[in-house]
């Protein structure tokens, strides 16, 4: 989940904060202090997160595009100038553009808005924006909700009392509401000072930037892993099942399946599964992410030499062309697989399926999958030449069952032509002739289109008169029989117009000796 830090650099951020017996601070210093703490935390515990820095007043500017280089972000923090008034709406529009350009509309992003709660004056102030919010056209839509999955965290360089003395808090709460409730407002507890800012950012870190640690298990093999990005809770149906589902910290592998069988399944999200080495206190030693730090490097080297189940699993899945099915929670599964990026690096990746008993229709119910040895016969065949997947649906889809649609005249004409073509090749094509005839008959009966049956009967009678002298005598018999049957059906009387009844070929015998029966 990439992060955009949106920093207020309007003049109000330079308001001094009175702290007894120390040098004078401004609110922007407090903000920079808090962000420094956030960046430091990410640099050690959340290294793979991409972060961008935007500053805004009446205009906005992208100071640092998305990066994992936290030194650059840190540097930018100390090079910020002071500008004019706050204009939040344009900054949020800027965030929309930056995120969509970089990540498109499907990747969830976290927006960390740092402001003092002074929301500007006149046009472009948040009050003005909210007041005119319902009078917008499509082209200047209010930027919330963000056009991508998002969380909006508002970090206020002010305490609750201060915000409540005006309508600031109310306006900021409206922002969260407009973002479909996705987000939270943080305020400083107690007097404005470095310590209290730290504790506010600490809360944000706890909420949004704590790494997700889990234990990957397969039988008696285990590995401690970090899952990145953090899997977010998922709501299945806000009406029936409104409680967000959270994934287990014990990730149990329940089976393995061929890549061809799982067949590019749709997933909610995907995550790197990084093995971590834990020392005795349970503290993380390293996630294996290379760092310039010498000590860490040597710690990584030691960890690198201790066999790890993740590496075994990754290699095995890669070689076998398989994925591992992992249990994420009750009726919730995911898959583990080897993912190679464009370079020669490859990695263990985990994708989450949608929760439910049957996330992939072509695999059927997950609970009904089991080891090959449980089956009476090997479902993959003795020579591994077949597969029980994909499962066939009970009813065929329209495109797989030769349905009859006559909405366009061409549909009807094609079907009539087919009958006619076969009629001219009787008796060789007797079977197909009757097959097509019965298909037409069924559809005409269902649609109550009895005129068509009469019309086709007339047509067959005409064909009968047009038969060349060389034609097989059977052709004439079959044509007039079929025409007669269609005519009977076109009366709609239940005796001849039964849907399940088919017109069968006339039984003829041209062997010579016996007389013809009609």
């Amino acid at each position, binding site marked *: 989940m990439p992060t955009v830090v949106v920093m207020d650099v309007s003049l109000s951020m330079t308001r001094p904060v009175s702290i007894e017996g120390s040098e004078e601070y401004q609110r922007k210093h407090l903000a920079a202090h808090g962000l420094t703490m956030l960046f430091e935390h990410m640099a050690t515990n959340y290294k793979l997160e991409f972060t961008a820095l935007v500053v805004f007043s009446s205009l906005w500017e992208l100071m640092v595009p998305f990066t994992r280089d936290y030194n650059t972000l840190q540097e930018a923090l100390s090079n910020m100038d002071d500008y004019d008034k706050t204009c939040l709406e344009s900054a949020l529009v800027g965030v929309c553009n930056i995120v969509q350009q970089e990540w*498109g509309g499907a990747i969830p992003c976290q927006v960390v808005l740092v402001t003092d709660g002074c929301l500007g004056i006149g046009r472009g102030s948040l009050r003005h924006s909210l007041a005119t919010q319902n009078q917008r056209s499509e082209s200047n839509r209010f930027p919330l909700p963000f056009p991508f999955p998002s969380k909006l965290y508002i970090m206020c360089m002010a305490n609750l009392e201060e915000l409540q003395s005006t309508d600031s808090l109310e306006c900021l709460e409206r922002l969260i509401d407009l973002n479909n409730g996705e987000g939270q407002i943080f305020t400083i507890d107690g007097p404005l000072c470095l310590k209290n800012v730290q504790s506010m950012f600490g809360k944000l870190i706890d909420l949004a930037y704590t790494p997700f640690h889990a234990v990957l298990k397969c039988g008696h093999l285990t590995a401690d892993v970090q899952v990145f990005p953090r899997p977010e809770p998922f709501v299945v149906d806000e009406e029936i099942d409104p409680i967000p589902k959270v994934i287990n910290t014990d990730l149990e592998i329940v089976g393995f399946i061929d890549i061809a069988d799982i067949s590019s399944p749709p997933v909610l999200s995907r995550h790197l599964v990084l093995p971590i080495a834990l020392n005795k206190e349970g503290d993380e030693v390293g996630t294996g992410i290379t760092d310039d730090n010498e000590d860490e490097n040597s710690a990584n080297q030691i960890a690198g030499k201790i066999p790890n189940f993740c590496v075994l699993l990754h290699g095995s899945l890669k070689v076998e062309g398989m994925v591992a099915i992992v249990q994420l929670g009750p009726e919730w599964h995911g898959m583990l697989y080897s993912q190679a990026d464009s370079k020669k690096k490859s990695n263990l990746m985990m994708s989450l399926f949608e929760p439910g008993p049957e996330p992939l229709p072509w695999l059927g119910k997950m609970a009904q999958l089991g080891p090959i040895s449980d089956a009476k016969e090997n479902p993959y065949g003795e020579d591994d030449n077949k597969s029980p997947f994909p499962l066939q649906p009970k009813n065929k889809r329209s495109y797989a069952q030769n349905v009859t649609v006559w909405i366009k005249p061409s549909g009807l004409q094609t079907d009539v032509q087919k009958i006619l073509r076969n009629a001219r090749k009787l008796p060789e094509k007797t079977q197909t002739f009757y097959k097509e005839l019965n298909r037409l008959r069924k559809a005409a009966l269902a649609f109550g289109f009895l005129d068509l049956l009469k019309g086709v009967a007339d047509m067959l009678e005409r064909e009968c008169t047009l038969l060349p002298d060389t034609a097989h005598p059977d052709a004439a018999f079959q044509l007039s029989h079929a025409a007669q049957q269609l005519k009977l059906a076109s009366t709609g009387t239940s005796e001849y117009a039964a*849907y399940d009844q088919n017109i069968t070929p006339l039984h003829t015998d041209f062997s010579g000796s016996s007389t013809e029966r009609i």
Partner: protein
Amino acid sequence: MKIFSESHKTVFVVDHCPYMAESCRQHVEFDMLVKNRTQGIIPLAPISKSLWTCSVESSMEYCRIMYDIFPFKKLVNFIVSDSGAHVLNSWTQEDQNLQELMAALAAVGPPNPRADPECCSILHGLVAAVETLCKITEYQHEARTLLMENAERVGNRGRIICITNAKSDSHVRMLEDCVQETIHEHNKLAANSDHLMQIQKCELVLIHTYPVGEDSLVSDRSKKELSPVLTSEVHSVRAGRHLATKLNILVQQHFDLASTTITNIPMKEEQHANTSANYDVELLHHKDAHVDFLKSGDSHLGGGSREGPFKETITLKWCTPRTNNIELHYCTGAYRISPVDVNSRPSSCLTNFLLNGRSVLLEQPRKSGSKVISHMLSSHGGEIFLHVLSSSRSILEDPPSISEGCGGRVTDYRITVVPLASVIVKESLTEEDVLNCQKTIYNLVDMERKNDPLPISTVGTRGKGPKRDEQYRIMWNELETLVRAHINNSEKHQRVLECLMACRSKPPEEEERKKRGRKREDKEDKSEKAVKDYEQEKSWQDSERLKGILERGKEDLAEAEIIKDSPDSPEPPNKKPLVEMDETPQVEKSKGPVSLLSLWSNRINTANSRKHQEFAGRLNSVNNRAELYQHLKEENGMETPENGKASRQ
């Protein structure tokens, strides 16, 4: 996302009164004369469909699209109304398919134009529709049972699509009032019932249809709330294809569908089989398959006017599949499709191609040269899905390689030969075991032929490991050693070896190179064996000799180091410091980092050694040869012959 939204239950109420037997006055030519047979024949007069036929085939098309895209949890109840209501099916999943509905419609037949119009009314059907909406579906029942005390969370909403021929706007209002009243009554009934549910929300869609060329007596009206429970909209539509088009638009609105046109599909011409032309096929699917277009477009289409976007289709270009390569794509959604024109030749060519198991990648047409693959069409078990592939920048780009992480530097995770290695050590083999082993060997041969990397070195080695053919040579040697160690077990073990040797047979030149390689290996084995054997060490009284052997070991080590880069060099020997030798008993042959064989042999030997006191002669032996009558020689003051040498080669 709600399972039990209005589209969970759809009731079709189709008018079956005598006037529906009237012609729609749109002619269909069905007698298309084929060329060179036309002389002197007058084609049969065109026919026309009745209002009934138009209504039925349009609603069947609605159902066809709905069932294709939502085969479950979206249910239809079909009611026909004349002098009474005929309910053609139920909410059960078994009743939800076109065949059932078609058969039921055939049983009803077309309306009887001679029936008494006074007895017939669409009202019977509308009342029955409300009644049926109160009936619980199996999905609602299941959800209620599951939620227990929260059962009230399960919603009961539905939609009534009524196709009729109304007399006037006030007639339409009368129909609406009737529905509203009936809902009110039935909700009261349902409140006191366990197996009925109150209707929370009902969407009434009234379609007035009339013959082409006549003036409509009813005016269109957009959706209007008649009560908190009921909304109603009126569509006045000419029969024939106009009605079909209207229902097509409605099914897209009701089920949040969107349209994608696949363009540039190469297809063989029917007439000229050796030429191919490009065709377009339009598909419908859930609109989420366009989520990236909707959100990243300049205008935000989502949530806007409902009528607007449905005429639009998004065009994606066919990319001819090159291989049948099985790949795991990063797919963020898969949505069932339904062709708009299901029976047209281009549609059926495309769907058959996909049903035969091929997948097609779809490209976004862009003005600039860059190629963006954004979707994939693929069938799974007779169902075709439009997969959405992620085409934006990945937030996981440039991840740390697994070889850089924990356990990344460990190289001997044994991954491939497992079936053989675990089977060959058994004392007796079954036919199946032999087959399994042979399969493994063939598999390896196949991998070597394809020059696939061996797993042991792709994982974990940093920088350039041994070359691929080298890896294979090492692997084959190791495998041969392993199998040879067990050939005495049974004739079946022998057969595995034969298979292995047959597979390994190489041209003479290569054989020669291999021999040289093996010699070196043997030497290496000796040295290792010598230095590894701790037990042996005790027996060596002459420390000078020990030194000598160690020295030679080092030489061999050095030699191995030097030739490391030549294509046929053996795997580098164990580089552990010599003093740290394991206390494991001697192994038959071992080389490289501990092989599976040596692991196994060590285990067996340790197990065995615990069971008995080791024979003194073996304990003191060199290379399993004990010098007999040593005391005689000592007494004679003679040097002991160099045992090691005798056992060499």
